[in-house]
């Protein structure tokens, strides 16, 4: 990362914090998927899906493989036509517009660099198709090479580059035409962990600096959480939830989202009533009914429901703590991760819950150890109720 991007950091943060066009009813979306369905023969890849994406958004399509996220992106690029519904870009219906006439560019998962062309020729390819004057093409290629810091490698061929360098060339090539939307298909999938983390931040800087709309397809929830303004979680061709990373993590709407994004403990139970603004849930995993404050859910008495708690929102104790929501069990396994320690606690009911504790100090005199009898507790507002 160079000095200019570092200098831009605080400003970027400020821009990001105040950016939420999706809450503004006056805002017009840049991209609109309107009840889009895509079938391949019998198989349904995308089913009756509607989605709005706004200008300058960093938007992620997140889901397991085969959930239809790549098909959705390819419909925007023009490689697939919807079976039903339509895709709009800046208010214009894209139906029947071939890929080479759409003002969007894609960075392919495999990068798809032309092996018979140099780095500079790869970047210039799209500009040549627009028949720009030669001087302008050269200037733009120069600018792009500077942007991705590959000035010295302009004459190299793709097979002479490292994985990270190839990724930058692919990015520069897709950005060179200044598309309205940049599509990134698993942009960091082929990089190793360290490089992936660095590149995440570089992509975010770049997106704000260029003022572009980025649409990213990924199956990696960490990647999606780090980079996105909003995330759409997809499953079986449908969108399950569209939300900011924070909302997605703290207020998942379904079990699928809760389990796909981050780690979570699920305790099955039945609604036993309402008391002082909190739901009472009877569960075989605890001796007393659990109390959960979740105003979003409207539930009936006796309805099956799951109490979901993130591992870091649970605490582990030797003595039974005061207050509600205490589970009892035995330490089954301990994972020391440096910043966190994860305890797997075997409850009397047979279920296993994960509790993670931040390692705030370097030495603990008498740490909790294997096979110890422990109590796990969580606050009523730390849990979520999931009925779907």
């Amino acid at each position, binding site marked *: 990362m160079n000095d200019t991007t570092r200098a831009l950091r605080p400003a970027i943060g400020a821009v990001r914090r105040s950016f939420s066009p999706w809450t503004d009813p006056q805002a017009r979306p840049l991209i609109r998927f309107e009840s889009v369905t895509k079938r391949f023969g019998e198989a349904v890849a995308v089913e009756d899906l509607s989605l709005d994406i706004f200008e300058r958004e960093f938007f992620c399509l997140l889901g397991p493989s085969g959930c239809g996220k790549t098909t959705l992106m390819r419909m925007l*690029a*023009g490689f697939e036509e919807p079976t039903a519904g339509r895709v709009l870009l800046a208010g214009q219906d894209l139906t029947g517009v071939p890929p*080479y006439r759409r003002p969007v560019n*894609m960075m*392919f998962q495999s990068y798809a660099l*032309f092996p018979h062309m140099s780095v500079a020729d790869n970047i210039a390819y799209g500009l040549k198709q627009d028949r720009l004057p030669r001087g302008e093409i050269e200037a733009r290629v120069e600018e792009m090479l500077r942007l991705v810091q590959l000035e010295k490698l302009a004459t190299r*061929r793709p097979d002479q580059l490292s994985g990270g360098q190839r990724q930058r060339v692919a990015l520069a090539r897709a950005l060179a*035409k200044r598309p309205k939307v940049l599509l990134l298909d698993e942009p960091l999938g082929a990089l190793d962990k360290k490089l992936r983390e660095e590149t995440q931040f570089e992509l975010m800087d770049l997106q704000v600096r260029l003022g572009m709309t980025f649409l990213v397809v990924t199956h990696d929830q960490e990647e999606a959480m780090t980079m996105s303004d909003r995330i759409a979680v997809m499953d079986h061709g449908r969108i399950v939830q569209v939300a900011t990373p924070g909302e997605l993590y703290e207020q998942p709407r379904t079990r699928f989202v809760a389990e796909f994004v981050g780690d979570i403990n699920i305790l099955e139970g039945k609604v036993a009533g309402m008391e002082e603004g909190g739901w009472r849930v009877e569960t075989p995993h605890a001796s007393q009914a659990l109390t959960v404050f979740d105003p979003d859910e409207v539930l009936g008495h006796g309805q099956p429901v799951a109490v979901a708690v993130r591992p870091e929102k649970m605490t582990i104790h030797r003595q039974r703590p005061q207050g509600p929501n205490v589970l009892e069990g035995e330490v089954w396994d301990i994972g020391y991760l440096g910043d966190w320690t994860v305890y797997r606690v075997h409850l009397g009911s047979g279920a296993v819950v994960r509790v993670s504790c931040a390692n705030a100090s370097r030495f603990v005199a008498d740490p909790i150890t294997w096979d110890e009898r422990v109590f796990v507790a969580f606050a009523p507002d730390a849990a979520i109720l999931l009925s779907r």
Partner: protein
Amino acid sequence: MSRSGWRKRLARAAVILPPYAWLAAFFLLPFVIVLRISLSDPASAQPPYRPLFDWTGGWDALMAFLGALDLENFETLASDSLYWEAAISSVTIALVSTVLLLLIGYPVAYGMARAAPRLRPLLVALVILPFWTSFLIRVYAWIAILKPEGLLNQFLLALGLISDPLTILNTPTAVYIGVVYAYLPFMILPLYAALERLDWTLVEAAQDLGSPPWKAFWTVTLPLSLPGVVAGSLLCFIPIVGEFVVPDLLGGSDTLMIGRTLWSEFFSNRDWPLASAVAVVLLLIVVIPIVFYREIEARRWEAR
């Protein structure tokens, strides 16, 4: 040098030697014999050329033998326009046929490479299938198709497209039909091999960057399949230059090809030395594109 070092060298020689020995015995030696005959004079004797080498004569006999060799036959070839025309006509027919083969073979190979993966082995088998029948029989079959009362003319007459039978057999057209038919698999297979390996997301990338399909083909697919184009063209061009069977069976007396000239010098005129000279010239014509190809290959490897 240590003992094991010698052993290693010996083992390496044992591996390298057989192919060289094979080439020396079945290519270099026959070529030297042909070259030697091409420098001799014809004679009504057995064998039909002079001088013969007298193994018992010692040094003087060897010098006399070498002194009797000359380039007379090559001078004859150079001065007689018949041989020039035969050579030029052979190269022309080979060039035109190669272009026709490319024009027909490329779309076929492209279609095969874009077919569903489970269909591809079947399509390859279909391309190779004609090899199950003798080449000679397949060329004879074309006589039956192309002759004035043949299948093609009967078909066209029945359709009412023509009122008189077309004369195709014994014309250059028949030679082109026969050659293109016979060599098509040799063009399709290398092209298919190159196209099948092609990463089609590259074509998508080209379209994504603003290239209409034809331009994506021209700037991405074609350049990347060029090794297949070169391999297929050489595989066809080289044997077509020396082709004898097809022009002999399908071409008329006005179709001059160097392979035919060679045959008639050898069998009709019994002029072995001149026939050998023709063979040497044919080899030279064919070697040029191979050298050219090797040059391109070498440069491609350097570029890596």
